[in-house]
């Protein structure tokens, strides 16, 4: 725009750029730096990268934290547990979200707007409280077990809480809107005449779905899957509240390493490996965000 002028342009880009550089990019470099330090007792509880021992500047870098991650099977199990649970949650979100998105895309006018609003609304309410609501439902003497026993369907309470089932359920519940919205975007952009042409040429509904609709909505499937998978891998609240001793997830391990063990270098190393593992999905997800025009 002609009117911004030199100083205006500098401020427009410079201010947010400076902010993000200082509070997003620089902190990531600090995490990398501390992951290469030794843990010490004191404040800050890690060794400096560069120090002066009286004979000039020395530097100290160690890979012991990463070696620990490789040696102790706890970390590997936690990484795999996170990836596995996130993948399961993504798959269930896709299966549950696709019919919902399809039904919304087929609705018209007022109905379509209202349904979209209803899908987005939970996102505006507290995430923590929505996860917490499931505890009362899934507890051994909780609402669902009481209900099923009242019907006489089961005799003893089912173990619904503090296991993999509750963690994946919590993730599907929390992230389902992230799957529905991109799917809806793709499905509502479908050209109806293509589908009619396929049907007129004799394709049966299942064939139309598999050969025409599914490939055409692939961008929505990919975007939705990434938007569910990436945050689910790093999730902390859900495994902490709904998980149990056998649902090891890396977000919780990082939290405990930091807050309970106070081992900042190991926590940093856990974070570095997590970012590295998620680098490809993160870059892909942010490309989708860039392309997708939010509603």
């Amino acid at each position: 725009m002609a009117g911004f002028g030199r100083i205006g342009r500098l401020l427009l880009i410079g201010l947010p750029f400076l902010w993000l550089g200082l509070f997003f990019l620089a902190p990531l470099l600090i995490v990398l730096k501390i992951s290469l330090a030794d843990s010490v007792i004191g404040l800050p509880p890690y060794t400096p990268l560069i120090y002066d021992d009286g004979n000039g500047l020395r530097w100290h870098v160690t890979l012991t934290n990463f070696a620990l991650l490789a040696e102790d099977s706890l970390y590997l199990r936690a990484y795999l547990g996170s990836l596995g649970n996130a993948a399961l949650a993504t798959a269930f979100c896709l299966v549950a979200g696709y019919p919902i998105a399809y039904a919304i895309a087929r609705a018209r006018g007022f109905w379509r707007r209202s349904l979209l609003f209803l899908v987005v609304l939970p996102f505006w309410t507290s995430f923590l409280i929505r996860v917490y609501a499931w505890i009362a439902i899934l507890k051994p003497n909780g609402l669902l077990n009481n209900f099923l026993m009242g019907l006489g369907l089961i005799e003893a309470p089912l173990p619904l809480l503090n296991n993999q089932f509750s963690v994946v359920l919590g993730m599907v519940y929390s992230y389902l809107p992230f799957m529905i919205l991109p799917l809806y975007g793709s499905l509502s952009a479908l050209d109806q005449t293509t589908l009619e042409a396929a049907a007129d040429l004799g394709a049966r509904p299942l064939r139309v779905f598999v050969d025409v609709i599914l490939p055409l909505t692939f961008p929505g499937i990919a975007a939705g899957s990434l938007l569910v998978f990436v945050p689910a891998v790093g999730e902390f609240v859900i495994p902490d509240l709904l998980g149990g001793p056998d649902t090891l997830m890396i977000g919780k391990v990082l939290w405990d390493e930091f807050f309970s063990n106070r081992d900042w270098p190991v926590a940093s190393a856990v974070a570095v490996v997590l970012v590295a593992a998620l680098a490809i999905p993160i870059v892909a997800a942010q490309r989708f965000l860039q392309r997708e025009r939010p509603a």
Partner: protein
Amino acid sequence: MSQDRGEALFRIAALVLGLGFLYAPIVLLILYSFNASRLVTVWGGFSARWYGELISNASFRAAAATSLEVAVMAASLSLVLGTCAGFGLSRLGRFPGRGLFGFALLAPLVVPEIILGLSLLLLFVASETWFGWPGRGILTITVAHATFGICFVSVLVRAQLAGFDRSVEEAALDLGARPWTVMTRITLPGISPALVSGWLLAFTLSLDDLVIASFVSGPSATTLPMAVFSSVRLGVSPEVNALATVFLGLVLVLVALAGWLMAREERRRRAISP
């Protein structure tokens, strides 16, 4: 014909089951906030006693005040900086570092929040050892929340600017309006839906955040999610149900207000352009 009916039934079933799944826990939570019994799973008759206990809970009250203070400041900071960033990316064409800028504006939306929290805390600790500033508390939580708020606002502003009719701005400039006047009288009002929803989004996300706030806050500042989390970790508590219901009501009012504002703006714009 029967195939069409089957398809319609399928769509209705998907919506009923899907929305039922999304709303059942919320509805149950609201219902049980009016439960007289302390046991969350036994219905002991209608009562508003947990709302009374909620109001007299001093630690929740203090935490709510902290959260509101942080959320208002973080959302306002996000609005200003995010709008700048949105304009910078969609109006200024190419400039050095544009790729990195675009990356830094979107990456915080997809990087796990536990990593954002850890990295920001390590920055604040480093800054404290070097400069003795800032102590951890309301200021550091605000800065952390503004950092992801900026990203959300800039995404919304960019989307709205992409659909903005530039010819009105050009006409105003041709008619001799100064660039600043065009900005404040035409462009900013034109993208006001994005500004309103951007501020609200940054505000709600700040109010909702547990993980990042837990990392960057110190003993002097406890936000509402932090207070709720520590009480929930001890077991299900009916007070939290009441709090959740109040929160939901508040969110509904805010969202309805935003929707009304945007609809009014839309009508006004339709009235201006034939």
